[in-house]
């Protein structure tokens, strides 16, 4: 009798559970390094060289270098760790999230002003 993972039925959602945490360990620790101004400068100066210092997978490197946050999340990145990366770009949560859902910042803000993404149709993979 394994653990309850009923949250895996939720569409468009990757819960940061043990499996994801293990997969993303070094990716997230890489993000943590960007809390220091000197590291942010070094990273922005030569991104490829900086990420090569970390034991990341090819997909994780690609996700970071292309700022493909959905890919980062699939590869174990957690949004609060990833925020150190988009803050390094001086991007906000709002701007980053709009990119994750494939909207322009304006369209995304419009959706939020209209009450956000509705829950109807978004509860379960069977339903959506």
């Amino acid at each position: 009798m394994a653990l309850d993972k009923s949250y895996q039925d939720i569409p468009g959602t990757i819960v940061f559970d043990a499996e994801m945490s293990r997969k993303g360990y070094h990716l997230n620790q890489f993000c943590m390094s960007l809390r220091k101004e000197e590291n942010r400068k070094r990273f922005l100066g030569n991104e490829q060289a900086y990420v090569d210092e970390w034991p990341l997978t090819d997909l994780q490197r690609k996700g970071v270098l292309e700022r493909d946050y959905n890919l980062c999340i699939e590869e174990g990145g957690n949004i609060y760790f990833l925020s150190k990366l988009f803050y390094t770009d001086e991007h906000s949560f709002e701007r980053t999230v709009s990119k994750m859902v494939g909207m322009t910042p304006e369209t995304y803000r419009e959706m939020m002003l209209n009450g956000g993404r509705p829950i109807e149709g978004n509860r379960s993979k069977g339903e959506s």
Partner: protein
Amino acid sequence: MARITSAVFSSHIPAVGAAIDGGTTDNEYWSPVFKRFEFSKQWQADNKPDVIILVYNDHASAFDLRVVPTFAIGCSESFEIADEGWGPRPVPPVIGHPDLAWHIAQSVILDSFDLTICNDFKVDHGLTVPLSLMFGQPDAWPCKVIPFMVNVIQYPPPTGKRCFDLGNALRNAVEKFDEDLNVHIWGTGGMSHQLQYTRAGLINKEWDTNFLNTLIADPEELSKTSHTEYIREAGSEGIELVMWLVARAALGAQVNEIQRFYHVPASNTALGHLILEKADS
């Protein structure tokens, strides 16, 4: 004897901090939020606590993945402001209350809560944004603050039931403290929001409304809500709301509602805010 007399609940959205720090609280987007907080700030000024037990979650600031405590209490004299990626927020350092914090730590550990005792860590927007909302931009925070961290990032967080039980244990601990202190407890985070992947932007006003109603009237019933329901209905980051149960239980059963506010959107999030006072106080 120390007593918990009030509980304040509030989202702790980074963009709200950015609006305060950047001076954009008057604009069309933010003024509906900050106008409503004028009442709360006045109430707070009229009801100044000696100490706030501030229940929040660290967002990869004090801890990274090497150490993930479920419950952690800050026992030091003071706490610096964390650099979350674009420099620390321009707010005063947080002054702790080591006497009460250590008392609470010892009391709840003996009461079967497996706390992590912490010294020398930095606090992030989870703690500072609610302080800014309630106190504005003073040169120094007007009271002491005990940071109380709950893991809600690494699944699984503590269950709602465990958070509810912890709240009761915190009340008992405070009431065993010999000094006369007016203590407030704050619950932060939420309400519905999802900051990641393709369902991001989710808002569930109906579920949030029901959460607020039940939190006030029957928190023990609310404590049965499963993690999957939080994530499904309130979004992957909406699970932060388990922290509200800690503060609600700590206040005791009978409460008066002083303030209630719900607003969509604040950046990606449904902003929720409550002030409750202990009914017999």
